[in-house]
């Protein structure tokens, strides 16, 4: 069965510091991979997605993620964090054979940004 693990429940970084949020997945083949962000009081917004091809994908708000098949990982990175990046981040996987768009989400990582 598909599953997603985000090992870090809570991360605190200083503004201007670099960020890496971890995501590991379990799936028989290469899944479709997504990162979503949820700001306080809001629904989820798509940051970026990976379907195939270049394993380094760029997203909105200066985020990027790298797919590593050998590690079953899809970690999210940002070189310099801004205070407005404080939010909850969710990694998700989907099946390429699905026609329903159903996603499996990780537990989420809450990012706190120190001034």
């Amino acid at each position, binding site marked *: 069965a598909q599953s997603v693990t985000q090992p870090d429940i809570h991360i605190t970084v200083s503004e201007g510091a670099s960020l890496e949020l971890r995501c590991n997945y379990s799936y028989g083949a290469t899944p479709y991979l997504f990162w979503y962000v949820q700001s306080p009081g809001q*629904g989820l917004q*798509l940051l970026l997605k990976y379907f195939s091809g270049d394993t380094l994908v760029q997203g909105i708000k200066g985020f990027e993620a790298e797919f590593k098949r050998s590690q079953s990982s899809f970690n999210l990175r940002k070189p310099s964090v801004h205070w407005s990046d404080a939010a909850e981040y*969710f990694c998700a996987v989907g099946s390429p054979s699905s*026609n*329903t*768009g159903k996603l499996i989400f990780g537990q989420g990582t809450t990012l706190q940004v120190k001034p």
Partner: protein
Amino acid sequence: DVKVTQSSRYLVKRTGEKVFLECVQDMDHENMFWYRQDPGLGLRLIYFSYDVKMKEKGDIPEGYSVSREKKERFSLILESASTNQTSMYLCASSPPGRRTYSPLHFGNGTRLTVT
């Protein structure tokens, strides 16, 4: 721009009440989803629908039912609300996923408290 609207931002209901959570999307999407979000558990899929009058159980359907009489509207029903159904409920929609696997578009959520 894509819009998914959940009718209530906050709801407080009593144990045993029948509760309706409404969701409307304006993108003519085929797929609609109800997720439940709890701290430390991420988003868990309750039900989804890939067409009018069609529905499928997600990972945690017990205690819930759904209705989709029109393409744009997907309702989540708690037949007899219980305190363990206190949670944030997120509705999402997407077009058919086989060719494009378009990302989910989320509403802002309904925070339900059952007392």
